[in-house]
């Protein structure tokens, strides 16, 4: 390098850039990363499986299998952070793409491998789409009646609406936004156009409303007109838990315009949900209401339960066979009849509806009902397609190897002449 040259390092060239790209791909597509990811996946699978005994299925799924990072209270030995399965799968996706698709030597011998790797990428992508875009809930239909509303199984939602305002939309605050580790934590919710903020505190995963003199109430519980929240043991079956919160509506000057508690009431052992009786407050001349309910949404079709039949094992209440006969009416008013029975869900318009529960023991005068789980999952069929692709890839790989083996054994090898 001459003294006149201002350049201290060699100039970038296409070959040099290609070399660097290859090094990067080699790094992120390395077997080292793949092995570490696989080992961590095994560890998470073990931890997640064992935790189901105490935490239940839903909690275990959330903690280990759908999280990016395992929440701090579930770290290994209490202080070793753990990645969640979502993070591991994301790393695996990149690793597989770099190492198993882009960097892999491509010739007729590796075609099967590349196809099999692509199918694995499809499986991971299906999981990601399902995690973020799947909608799942249940629809309870009485015999002879129809419904187009689906209610979530798991999480609760705060619904905020204005009475008689220009904006008729109902705003939703998901439980994941106000779920806190400690009841002492407060989350503030705001929105442009709202003349108030909502401060949500005292979150309990499972609680009911009781009177302040109830011996089951925690010392120092907030008193709202003689009522307060009584925490209940958290049920491992997450859908059995009823969230409870305290809520303060505060106007933009910081003045509290209303305070309440939101949860469900248990009367004579029955849960009473007062969906029609929300907390309401006034700011200026505008009146708003807030309710805590299971998230509910409408689907673009209605299902009418024409008939429900169940057959039991002799002498038991264990269902042997059951089926719902429904009529689906789509947005254009077209009716289609379906029979939904064991392992045979209804599939139409991107939705899947399958039998979850039923009641055919209602006393005379009360109709039987069927509970259908309704799922909309854009990647519903992707695993099937991925497995077909994987089958093709592995078949190509095995047949190629078989052909090579046959060729080798058919032609005697002549030792080289010295």
């Amino acid at each position, binding site marked *: 390098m001459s003294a006149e040259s201002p350049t201290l390092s060699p100039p970038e060239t296409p070959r040099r850039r290609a070399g660097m790209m290859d090094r990067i791909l080699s790094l992120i597509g390395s077997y080292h*990363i793949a092995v*570490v990811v696989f080992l961590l996946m095994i560890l998470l699978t073990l931890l997640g499986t064992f935790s189901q005994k105490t935490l239940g299925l839903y909690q275990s799924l959330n903690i280990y299998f759908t999280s990016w990072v395992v929440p701090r209270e579930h770290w290994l030995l209490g202080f070793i952070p753990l990645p969640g399965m979502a993070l591991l799968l994301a790393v695996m996706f990149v690793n597989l793409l770099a190492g198993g698709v882009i960097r892999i030597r491509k010739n007729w011998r590796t075609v099967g491998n590349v196809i099999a790797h692509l199918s694995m990428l499809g499986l991971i992508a299906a999981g990601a789409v399902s995690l973020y875009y799947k909608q799942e809930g249940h629809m309870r239909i009485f015999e002879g009646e129809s419904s187009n509303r689906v209610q979530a199984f798991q999480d609760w939602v705060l619904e905020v609406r204005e009475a008689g305002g220009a904006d008729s*939309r109902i*705003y939703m605050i998901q439980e994941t936004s106000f779920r806190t580790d400690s009841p002492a934590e407060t989350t*503030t*919710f705001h929105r442009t156009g709202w003349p108030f903020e909502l401060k949500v505190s005292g979150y309990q995963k499972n609680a009911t409303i009781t009177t302040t*003199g109830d011996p089951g109430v925690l010392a120092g519980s907030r008193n709202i007109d003689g009522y307060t929240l009584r925490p209940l043991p958290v049920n491992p079956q997450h859908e059995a838990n009823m969230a409870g919160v305290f809520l303060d509506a505060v106007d933009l000057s910081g003045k509290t315009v209303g305070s309440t508690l939101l949860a469900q*009431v248990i009367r004579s052992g029955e849960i009473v949900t007062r969906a029609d009786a929300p907390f*309401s407050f006034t700011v200026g001349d505008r009146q708003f209401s807030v309710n805590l309910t299971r998230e509910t949404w409408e689907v673009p079709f209605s299902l009418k339960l024409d008939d429900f039949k169940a057959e039991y094992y002799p002498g038991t209440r264990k269902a042997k066979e059951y089926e719902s006969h429904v009529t689906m009416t789509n947005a254009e008013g077209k009716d289609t009849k379906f029979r939904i029975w064991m392992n045979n869900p209804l599939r139409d318009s991107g939705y899947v509806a399958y039998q979850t529960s039923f009641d055919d023991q209602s006393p005379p005068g009360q109709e039987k009902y069927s509970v259908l789980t309704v799922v909309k999952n854009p990647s519903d069929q992707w695993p099937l397609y991925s497995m077909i692709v994987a089958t093709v890839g592995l078949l190509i790989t095995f047949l190629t190897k078989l052909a090579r083996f046959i060729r080798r054994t058919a032609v005697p090898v002549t030792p080289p002449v010295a």
Partner: protein
Amino acid sequence: MPALPSLKSAVLILPGTVLLLAGCGRKDRVEVMDSRAPFTNEPAPKLGLSTAQRYAANDAQSMLRWTTPEGWNFLPATEFRHLNFDFGPSREGEAYLTLLPVNGGGGVLDNLNRWRKQMDQPPLTESELAALPTKTVFGRPVPCLDITGTFTGGSGPMMAASTPKPGYRMLGAIFEAPGFLFTLKLTGPEALVAAHAARFDAFAQSLGVAGTPATGQ
């Protein structure tokens, strides 16, 4: 060519990412973005309801307005205690309101005499009932009991007798309203009841129909 991290150090990327993501906490201030349109035929919510109306454990709580006296604990309702309280250092004082259907739980005199029996007192006659002192409840004069003696009643009007409790005092008021018989009762050790008698009166006077303004009594 600048050195790239070794493969071993690349393996460290994963735990590094984990720690980075673990450091991301939950937000304590959130802008509300999700919304939905009202459903077809979705009923409009009932606005302006009180906490008791929304979370009432029974019809009495949803129908009534009241003020819980200071020092009284508002207990969960039971089948026969629709507004249920206790008080005192050991919560040995009890006060409750019961709504009984007219003709389903006897009349005013039947119930007053049942209470007198719990305090080991002879029954009253109609004329003695008419001569009882009154309190103002729901803006009307209501016959009242004030008996000191041995309490043998159980917990609740339909409950079995309990161990006799000497030195007890009972305050009570019963009146009929359209469709219902209201019974108000307070029992406890004599000294404790003496300290809470005025609060019992205040509680009785605070009773009103839910949704109507308090009279400021």
